[in-house]
C-alpha cells in the first residue's frame, strides 16, 4: 500500500513537472534567444544555452529603439482599460446579480451576442466610427475599443462572483443602517476582491497582448503599443530576433508584476464563515 502511495505521489509530481516544462519552454526559449549574441545565433546550432550570454540586445532595445515608448503606451492603454472595465463590470455585474428589472433578459442576450462576432469583421466599421471623431491613431481610441470588447465578458465574470455572495449579508447591512450603495461598497465589494483581481488581470493581459486593433487603428511609432512595436523589429530583409526576444522578455515583466500583486486576492475563501458551513 505504502509503495503504491509513494509511486502515485512520484507519478503525480512528474506529471506536473512535465506540464510545467511544456508550458514554460517557449518562455525559456524567448529568454535564451534574447541573451544570445548575434554572431552566435545562427552559428551554434540548436543548444539549450549559448556558449556566451550577453545583455547587448537588452541594452540596444532600451537605449536605441522606440521600445520604451511602446512600453509606456501599452502600460497606459492596458492599465486604463483594466481599471475602466473593472469599474463598469463591477457595477453592471452587481445589477445583473441583485436587481430584477425590465429588459434584463434581452440585455443579457445582447451582451452575449456581442461575444459571437469574429473581431476581424468589426475592424472596418470601427475604423469608420472612430476616424471622424479623431480617435484613430490615439491611445484613447484604443482604450474605448478595448473597453467595449471586454465589458460584456467581465460583467459576466463579476456577476458570477456577486452571485457567490449571500444576499443576507447586504440585507443585514441595510438593516444595520446602510443604504444599498453603502452596503455594496463596505460589505460586498471587499468580499469580491478575488473577483475584481481576476477581472483586472484578465482584462489587463487581454489588452496587453492585443494586436489586431492596435495594428489597424494606430499608425506610426508615437502611439504604437508594444505588440505593434514588436513588428518594427521585422524589416524588409531580416528579422532581428535577438532584439525582438529581448523586447518580449521586457514586456513580460509588468504582466508578471501585476499578477504577483493580485495573486493573494485570487485565492478564494475570503467569504468563509459569513454564513453557515
Amino acid at each position, binding site marked *: 500500500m505504502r509503495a503504491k502511495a509513494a509511486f502515485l505521489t512520484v507519478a503525480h509530481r512528474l506529471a506536473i513537472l512535465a506540464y510545467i516544462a511544456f508550458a514554460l519552454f517557449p518562455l525559456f526559449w524567448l529568454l535564451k534567444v534574447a541573451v544570445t549574441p548575434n554572431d552566435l545565433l545562427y552559428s551554434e546550432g540548436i543548444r539549450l544555452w549559448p556558449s556566451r550570454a550577453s545583455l547587448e540586445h537588452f541594452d540596444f532595445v532600451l537605449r536605441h529603439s522606440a521600445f520604451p515608448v511602446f512600453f509606456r503606451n501599452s502600460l497606459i492603454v492596458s492599465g486604463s482599460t483594466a481599471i475602466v472595465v473593472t469599474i463598469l463590470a463591477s457595477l453592471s455585474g452587481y445589477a445583473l446579480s441583485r436587481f430584477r428589472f425590465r429588459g434584463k433578459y434581452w440585455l443579457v442576450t445582447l451582451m452575449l451576442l456581442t461575444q459571437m462576432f469574429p473581431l476581424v469583421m468589426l475592424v472596418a466599421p470601427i475604423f469608420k466610427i472612430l476616424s471622424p471623431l479623431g480617435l484613430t491613431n490615439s491611445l484613447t481610441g484604443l482604450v474605448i475599443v478595448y473597453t467595449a470588447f471586454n465589458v460584456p465578458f467581465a460583467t459576466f465574470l463579476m456577476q458570477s462572483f456577486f452571485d457567490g455572495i449571500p444576499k443576507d449579508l447586504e*440585507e443585514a447591512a441595510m438593516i444595520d443602517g446602510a443604504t444599498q450603495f453603502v452596503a455594496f461598497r463596505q460589505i460586498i465589494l471587499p468580499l469580491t476582491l478575488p473577483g475584481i483581481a481576476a477581472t483586472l488581470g484578465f482584462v489587463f493581459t487581454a489588452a496587453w497582448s492585443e494586436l489586431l486593433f492596435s495594428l489597424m487603428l494606430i499608425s506610426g511609432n508615437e502611439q504604437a503599443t508594444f505588440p505593434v512595436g514588436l513588428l518594427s523589429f521585422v524589416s524588409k530583409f531580416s528579422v532581428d530576433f535577438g532584439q525582438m526576444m529581448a523586447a518580449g522578455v521586457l514586456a513580460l515583466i509588468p504582466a508578471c508584476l501585476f499578477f504577483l500583486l493580485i495573486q493573494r486576492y485570487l485565492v478564494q475563501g475570503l467569504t468563509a464563515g*459569513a454564513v453557515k458551513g
Partner: protein
Amino acid sequence: MASIDIANIQKSYGIHPVLHKVDLKIRDGEFVVLVGPSGCGKSTLLRMIAGLESVTAGEIRIAGKRVNELAPKDRDIAMVFQSYALYPHMSVARNMSYSLRLRKTPKERIATVVAGAAAKLGLDPLLERRPRALSGGQRQRVAMGRAIVRQPKAFLFDEPLSNLDARLREQMRAEIKKLHKDLGATSIYVTHDQIEAMTLADRIVAMNAGVVQQVGSPLDLYDRPANLFVAGFIGSPGMNFFEGTHHVGDRPRFEIAGDIGIPLDAPAPLANNAKATLGIRPEHVVLAGHGPETLLATVDLVEPTGFGIILHLSLGRAGFKAFTNDRSFLTASGTIPVHFPTHALHFFDGEGNRV
C-alpha cells in the same frame, strides 16, 4: 421599544398571492412567534416588517408611524438571520459595532456598548476573531450581539436556531428567552419548530398557505386549536384525528370506520349524523377501560423515548398514538383497553373548523 401594527397586509409575486389579509397588533415588549410549515408566508411577513420586501397592499406601523415606504435602515429594527449573515471580513467587535459606526456613534460609547453586549453573551474572549474562526453557536451569539447593541425599536428573528444542533438549539432558546426578559424588547420570531414557538412566545401566530390560522397564547393554541391545521401542527407527538359521524340519542357516540363507536359523556355541538373529525392528544388517551363500551385497541408498535412511551395503536383501520409514563406498557402487545375522556376531545366540522 415600540408596538407594531400590521393592518390588512397582502403580498403577491406577480399574480401569485403569498399573504392574504394579515391583521396583527403586536404590543410593546411582546414576544410574538410566527409559526407554520415552510412556504406559509411567515418569513415573507417578517421581511416585509424589516423592509426587505415591498408591501402589495395594507399598512405596517412601527410605534404608530407608517413604514411601508421607509428603507430598512430608517425603520430602526434589528434582525437575526438564519444564516447569521456575519460580515466575514470584519472581526467580531467590528461586526457588532457596524450599525453604530454607520450612525457615527462616538468611539467611547461604541466601546462601552460592545463590551456590555459581549459580556452579556459571553463573547469577550472572541472580540478580535473573524467569523470563520467561530463555532456555529458562537456565530449565533455574535448575530444576537449585533442586534442588541443597537437598542432598536424591535427585534426580528428569522429562524435563528435552525442551523444549530439539537442541544445547542435548546441552550440558545433559553438564552433568547432570558435576553427578552432582560431587555423587554418587542420581538417577532419566525420558526417552523412548534416547540420553539411554544416555549418562547407570549403569543403565537399560526400560519398556513399565507393565511393566519389562529393567534393566541401557546396554551390557547394547545388546548383550544381553532382548526385542524393548528390542532395538527402544535404538539409533538401530534394530535390524533378520527373521521366519522356524530350520533346523538340516549347513548351519544362518535362512529368511525368499521362501525366502531367512541362513547361520549354528552353530545358534541354537532347535528345528528353530521360528518366531522374528532381529535385527541396522545397524552389524553387513557390506557384503561371500564364498562361494556370499552374500546379495544391493537398495539402496532412501542416507542420508548426515555421520558415516556409512545404507543402506536389502531382501532379498526384507524391508527393513532398514545403517550404514557407508565413503563409497564413497554411490553404491551395484542390488544389493550383504551378510553377517550370526553372533556379531552376536540371536534372539527366538515370545513375543519373547531366546534
